[in-house]
């Protein structure tokens, strides 16, 4: 079961801090599941991919369990992975 945690604007748009997206095997599948279950993420956080499915907008960035920032939707996920979604801008 892959879990997605939200921070910043994505958390505001999602309306929840985290959500399980089931047994998905790639970042793209996780984002597709989010797009279906949380339409409030559309536009600001998620946008349709030209080739089908969903991807992050440039305003957001994903990170695999705190280890690695990812934007490529083809990156594979392990069953218990945690995908973190942040505002892309870390300016403070």
């Amino acid at each position: 079961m892959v879990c997605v945690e939200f921070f910043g604007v994505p958390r505001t748009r999602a309306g929840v801090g985290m959500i399980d997206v089931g047994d998905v095997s790639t970042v793209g599948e996780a984002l597709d599941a989010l797009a279906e279950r949380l339409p409030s993420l559309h536009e600001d956080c998620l946008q349709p991919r030209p080739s089908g499915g969903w991807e992050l907008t440039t305003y957001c960035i994903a990170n695999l369990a705190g280890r690695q920032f990812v934007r490529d939707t083809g990156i594979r996920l392990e069953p218990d992975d945690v995908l973190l979604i942040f505002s892309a801008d870390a300016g403070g």
Partner: protein
Amino acid sequence: MFGYHGRYLRIDLATGDYRYVALSEKTLRAFLGGSGLGAYLLLSEDQAAADPLSPEAPLAFVFSSLVGSPLTTSAKFSVVAKGPLSDRFNDSLASSSFALAGKRAGADAIVLVGKADIPVVVVVDDGAVRLDPAGPLWGLSCQESERQLRQAYGNDYQCAVIGPAGERQVRYATISHDGRHAGRGGHGAVLGAKQVKALAVRGTQRCEWARPAELVALAKQLSDQSLGPATAKYRELGTATNLTTFHRLQALPTRNFQDSQFAEAERLSPESLSLTRGKARASCAACTIGCEHIYQLHAKEPGQQSVGPGVRLEYENLFALGPLCGVDDPQAVLEASLLCDQLGLDTISTGGTLAFAMECVERGLLDAPWLRFGDASALLRGVREIGAREGLGDALAEGSRRLAGQLGGRSIEFAAQVKGLELPGYEPRALQTMALGFAVGARGADHNRSGAYEVDFSDRVDRRDLTPAGAHFAMETENQAALMDSLILCKFLRRIFTDFHGEAARMLRLVTGWEVTDGEMRQTARRIITAKKLFNIQAGWTPAEDTLPQRFLTEATRDAPTTRLSATALNKAITAYNQARGWTADGWLPAEHLEDLGLTSLQSSREIRGR
């Protein structure tokens, strides 16, 4: 000339004499304004070797061609001087209507030299200058000083002031206007040393724009973009939302950089604070983003609307006065922030110095048993003592590097500063491109002059594995920051640009009429960065100071034992950075490089030049 007055105002505080000095179009085009023009002015004054708190050391308030234009976020000014914390080049910026009034007073910059005999208010009234006795203003808080100045001089004056911390020459005192601070590096102390309580400005002298209709159209487009998703984080949550993000990524400096996570981060988050406190949003002058989030000091009781004064809360004051000192009490963090605002203290250096002192107490290097991590009352007492330079506060007011010098015992190894400037809230071992940016920064460890953390927050690098390839990214973000600080524009706009250099060139073309290209903008950025370095060399810079404290190069944080940054990796990246800049491998400036950038004439007769 469009966009500029073509002159700066130079005021001698010892005599009250003033004169206007011409600024050629060539000079203005080469340095733009803000921090860039400030670097030029400091080099021209040729006092890089002077003690920053001595009468000889100049301090400049600098505007730019974009100030007063309809471009969003352009109401900014830069204060430039030799920094009393770092003894190196220091620029700090603030956004407020002071910039608009200051430019309308009739000059592109106001340079203060000398020292007044008594505490004064420097009044620049539409081109004429006088020094009024500060009288009972001396000793008042920033806010109360401004209020009384408005009452005395009228609302058409805008007044940049120092608080009690600046008067007492706390080395990280700020200059404040309308609740905003030119905050880092201690310019408030420089004004305090000159016995200047405030600079009051007003005027009627406007600069024409070269292509006003097109400029207004561009400004509208930029404003519309600034209301979109690229700035939503700042508008909706403010920078304080970084706290939980950085905590999750183990990049949140905690207990003087001993840890990278703070278990109570959620309690201090803006999302949690909003549940218990009233909150208002505000904008700087001429800004459409509206990033300021002002929280009520006290939590509200059921049925109450709001309680107590409002406190501007940013990530940096939240991290520095909260996790960095181990304090998890939101009330105390807000109160400490408010105290810093009133006293005129840089929150990052205040929190950084207190956190360093707390660790020194833990290690038995400092006899102040009351000063403990996590103790909210100690935090508040510490801030008050610093502002008053009372008790331990007198030593803390010198900043962590000088305090380490007093304490010895290898404490300098865990004093989290570069060139004397305390680190902001970006853990360098977890954000290693940023670590490079900290190490090479002209004003020391800083997140506003190097935006290298942007690269760490991307899939372009492994943020925990610095390689020489990071040098290019660090340089590019530094170049962009230098341009934004010289044009001047707020960095929170940066994600709305798809071609920053091209769009910046267009703004400049419309305001000034110069046929500026993106290529020229890139060269201008290189010139400005190199001019700052040239000043530092004249002030005594050596390659040894472009580094990080030993803690970051020899230890991991306690909660992330595998996240390490080696001295070897950092040194290789620094060498790559220097070479990418066209400097020598260890960071000196080749004569042909200075010539290429048009900086040869700014070399000092007293310059210390190493090879």
